[in-house]
């Protein structure tokens, strides 16, 4: 279990990274925290010709709040999202509050184990695109925007377009995922996250994230998002289940009804960790629990 040979570059500037990616295209692979890529290299399931280590590049590990979004630099390690601190528009740095500020730590504690969270990065997880990865589910559920850089250019990719299939994203070989923008959910939002894994720290068999917006006057749900991982090659949204929530007042009965629709809406295939039927059962349970959690969470 030793990796195949690769050439190695550790540029100290963003330009250097983009230059190497430009030169080597799909022969190159970006190394961020390495907690997903290196195991695959040790198994020789991944064998890049060139590794571009972005560990020496400054400016990729910031968190800042701009225009209602939290921008998370690609190299922000998971551990920092356990207690997110961001630069605000006025230049001050402070703990991130609000719904997103509560949600991120709730999700982060499910990401691997402590040593993994000390090395692994948010951007690395998103770019690796494991369909059961917590951050991918979060990005898809909240309609995050991925900021991709290439030599001489930048583009923003919507989460719906970003995740293409297992371990495959819309990033071009010469592009670097530089940051991810997450919407700051207003205090009229309620979010929940629930996952089922076999052991502490394992990838989820199925995980669900829910976010609902409540009409202040009626208490009814005006907007709903349900994202699920572990049921397809990418994290998926469940529009039919979302639709059952809109216009209704949250409650156990509604949650169960939405969860039932969710279970029918997914189309999982079975594997070692769970058959299709079992994954549907887990979708039902996880969606209901995430909704219940969100119902009780402080805004």
């Amino acid at each position, binding site marked *: *279990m*030793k*990796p*195949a*040979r*690769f*050439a*190695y*570059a*550790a*540029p100290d500037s963003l330009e*250097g*990274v983009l*230059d*190497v990616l430009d030169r080597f295209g799909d022969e190159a692979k970006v*190394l961020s925290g*390495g*907690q997903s890529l*290196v*195991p695959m*290299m*040790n*198994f020789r399931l991944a064998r890049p*010709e*060139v*590794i571009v*280590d972005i*560990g020496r590049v400054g400016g990729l590990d910031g968190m800042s709040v701009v225009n209602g979004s939290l921008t998370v630099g690609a190299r922000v390690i998971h551990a920092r999202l356990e207690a997110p601190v961001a630069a605000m528009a006025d230049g001050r740095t402070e703990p991130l509050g609000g719904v997103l500020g509560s949600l991120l730590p709730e999700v982060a*504690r499910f990401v691997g*184990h*402590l*040593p*993994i969270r*000390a*090395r692994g990065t948010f951007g690395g997880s998103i770019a690796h695109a494991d369909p059961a990865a917590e951050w991918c589910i979060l990005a898809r559920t909240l309609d995050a925007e991925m900021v991709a850089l290439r030599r001489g250019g930048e583009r923003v990719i919507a989460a719906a377009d970003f995740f293409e299939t297992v371990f495959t994203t819309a990033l071009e070989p010469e592009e670097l995922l530089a940051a991810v923008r997450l919407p700051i959910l207003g205090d009229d939002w309620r979010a929940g996250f629930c996952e089922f894994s076999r052991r*502490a*720290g394992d990838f989820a068999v199925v995980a669900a994230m829910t976010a609902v917006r409540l009409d202040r006057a009626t208490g009814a749900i005006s907007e709903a998002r349900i994202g699920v991982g572990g049921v397809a090659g990418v994290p998926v949204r469940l529009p039919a289940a979302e639709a059952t929530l809109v216009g209704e007042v949250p409650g156990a009965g509604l949650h169960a009804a939405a969860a039932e629709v969710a279970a029918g809406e997914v189309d999982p295939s079975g594997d070692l960790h769970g058959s299709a039927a079992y994954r549907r059962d887990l979708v039902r349970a996880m969606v209901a629990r995430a909704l219940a959690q969100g119902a009780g969470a402080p805004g």
Partner: protein
Amino acid sequence: MTEISPADVAVPVVLRVNGTDHRVSAEPRRTLADTLREDCGLTGTHLGCEHGVCGACTVLLDGEPVRSCLLFAVQAQGAEIRTVEGLAGDDGTLHPLQEAFWRHHGLQCGFCTPGFLMLSAGVLETRPDIGDDELREALSSNLCRCTGYQTIVEAVRSVRDAAGA
């Protein structure tokens, strides 16, 4: 133009381990774990899975516990690395965690022990007042096949409590 180290050439790497500089040469693909074990002669860092699950290879990198099987030696240049060999005092006095693992029977075959010691050292140094539940969660990072874990938890807890007393 960015410098690129060719795949099949060992490059000079300076690793600072337990306060001492080790000048070695390593192909880019050589992991930190293999470099510590084979080039620095520090075989206390063990390899149990080489895919980041078992934690036998845990070392401290700038104070944080990390899997040395998931890091390349070339990435670790400039960092402060600590391994199990650096835990005891210069006079050979065992570190409080080593004493506690001994007293509480926190090891049997001893293969996972260096990883658990470094994990625990990193956790207690950065979070000296960690709660019982969080400690258990942190210790779930590594695998032990012999002890059933209980005595490991008791050992680490006793060091935390003694330090806080």
